[in-house]
């Protein structure tokens, strides 16, 4: 439990750093951020909007940077992320609609990609030196392609050219959102192509990492021992793979940030109604409260996912457990 408590402490600290960066960044830029922001808005600005902008920067009532900071923290603590300039609605309620889409899309594709990559990597490591090794440069190439570019190409080929998959959006126009079967089916159908493209972009990393660990593991004595005992091949592979997978899981918490960064843009390509698409709109419209809110929500979600990965690691690796018990 001590390990988890320590990780939790780290993530709380990270969350605080992200929150504080959000507070400091606008103030590092030359000039008064609120004035700069108002200057950037081309349409008519109402006093109410100015107040909303000031609030979202923590400049509500009192001046003085410390007082502002605490106003800002207080606002955040109550889930108040300010008001979006372009959409006119509170940032938190806008995000409540788009975050589930993102978590669903990225969550499913990350989990599938991790399992497929790990199993494939274990097999590649086991059969090292065989003709399957020629998969490696291909996998590397896919890994190097930016997520959004692969998404674009897949959209073009399988969506608009071959019409194998529906394009653009997260569900068909005909379906009524809710817990009815036709809506869920349509969500799955529309999610296929984005999920596949995220998997294709991210699977190579898991695969290569697992392969390398597997090769190192096969050289260990306990694997030789397992063979000498006459264990069936499948059991020997499982023996080695169980140990080889640990670094992959340790890296999982690091990789989530990278995957999320890439996958946000995939949403953009597919017009998926998640946070990524919203972020682009916010950036294009210079909607700073919205940009900041999205950044915080993404960061918090990634931190939560990290914590989950840490727990899984703890469950799988008895050594960390015994350490924690001491």
């Amino acid at each position, binding site marked *: 439990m001590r390990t988890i408590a320590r990780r939790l402490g*780290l993530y709380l600290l990270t969350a605080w750093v992200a929150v504080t960066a959000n507070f400091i960044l606008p103030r590092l830029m030359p000039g008064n951020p609120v004035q700069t922001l108002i200057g950037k808005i081309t349409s008519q600005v109402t006093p109410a909007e100015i107040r909303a902008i000031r609030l979202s920067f923590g400049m509500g009532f009192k001046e003085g940077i410390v007082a502002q900071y605490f106003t800002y923290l207080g606002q955040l603590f109550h889930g108040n992320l300010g008001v979006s300039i372009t959409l006119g609605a509170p940032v938190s309620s806008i995000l409540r609609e788009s975050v589930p889409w993102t978590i669903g899309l990225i969550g499913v594709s990350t989990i599938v990609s991790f399992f497929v990559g790990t199993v494939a990597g274990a097999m590649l490591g086991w059969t090292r030196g065989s003709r399957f090794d020629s998969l490696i440069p291909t996998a590397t190439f896919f890994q190097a392609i*930016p997520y959004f570019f692969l998404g674009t190409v897949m959209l073009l080929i399988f969506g608009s050219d071959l019409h194998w998959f529906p394009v653009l959006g997260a569900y068909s126009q005909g379906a009524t959102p809710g817990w009815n079967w036709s809506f869920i089916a349509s969500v799955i159908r529309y999610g296929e192509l984005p999920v596949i493209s995220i998997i294709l972009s991210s699977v190579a990393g898991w695969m290569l990492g697992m392969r390398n660990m597997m090769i190192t593991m096969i050289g260990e004595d306990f694997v030789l021992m397992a063979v000498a005992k006459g264990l069936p091949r499948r059991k020997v592979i499982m023996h080695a793979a169980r140990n080889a997978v640990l670094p992959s899981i340790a890296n999982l918490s690091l990789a989530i*940030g990278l995957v999320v960064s890439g996958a*946000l843009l995939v949403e953009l390509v597919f017009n998926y109604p998640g946070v990524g698409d919203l972020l682009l709109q916010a950036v294009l419209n210079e909607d700073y409260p919205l940009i900041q809110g999205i950044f915080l929500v993404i960061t918090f979600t990634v931190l939560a996912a990290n914590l989950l990965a840490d727990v899984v690691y703890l469950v799988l690796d008895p050594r960390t457990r015994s350490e924690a018990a001491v």
Partner: protein
Amino acid sequence: MRGLALPRSPKVILGLGILGFFIVMTVIGPWLAPYDPSSTAFPALLTPSSHHLLGTTSLGQDIFSQLLVGARATMVVALVAGLVATVLSMVVGVTAGYLGGVSDDGLTLLSNVFLAIPGVPLLIVIDSYLPVNSRSNEFVIGLIISLTGWAWGARVLRAQTLSLRNRDFVEAARIIGESRRRIMFSEIAPNLLPVLASSLLFTVLYSIGAYVTLAYIGLTSTATWNWGTMLYWAQANNAPLSNEWYWFIPPGICIALVGTGLALVNFGIDEFINPRLRAAGLTARQRRQLHLPRRARLGLTPVVSLAPAPNRRSTHAVVK
């Protein structure tokens, strides 16, 4: 010093070849470009021909010229970010690993915090506050990217430093009374080279991705040409859905190829650090030449020596 004699596997040679090609393109690309990449003098949306190797954009700009000119900004940003981030990670990682104690705890905490914050969203926030003229400055963008990309390297370097710290030669230097700085930079640092090189490649790879991403969502100046802005304009004009493949495929392929080159060279470094991977990457013919069993056997992934052994050469001659 033959510290970084990379294994000469086909993967490494291919990787170095690809990187070399793009480095040449970075240096001479802008001079080779047949037209001004921003000039709108040509008919719009020409398909590739001998006059316009990659066709033209919807504004009538020559795509091939954009690709050649754009290589420079892309590679410069990646290199600046990669170098700065690697220096940062070296300073933080080696100091933390060598000093230990409170400074280690503090620095490790710092890099863990930066590892946990998702990099690209943070970049987007920072970049969206930049004044417009800084957004077109490759060095400013490179610096910002390096701020979000150093932590991974610091972590790896710290681990490596920790394992080196108590080796005999470092102990010896300490007993002689060498200064801390000298031990850190003259004794430990050279042994970190492979890890350092690998972390440089990794950061350059990350930086290209981050820069292209920023450009793609329109957060770098759209007036300077790089591969990301090309994709931005292609997307903005709906090129992917209107089948104008010659507009958006080339920059994407270039990005992917540079990344592949970096990753392939990184394989070489991995094989250098971990000799067991070296044997695993050999082709059937090389295995024969090295007198290794044709099928990988269990429990002994052989360690391949890089030194040219005399019998190896003679077998080679026989095979020929």
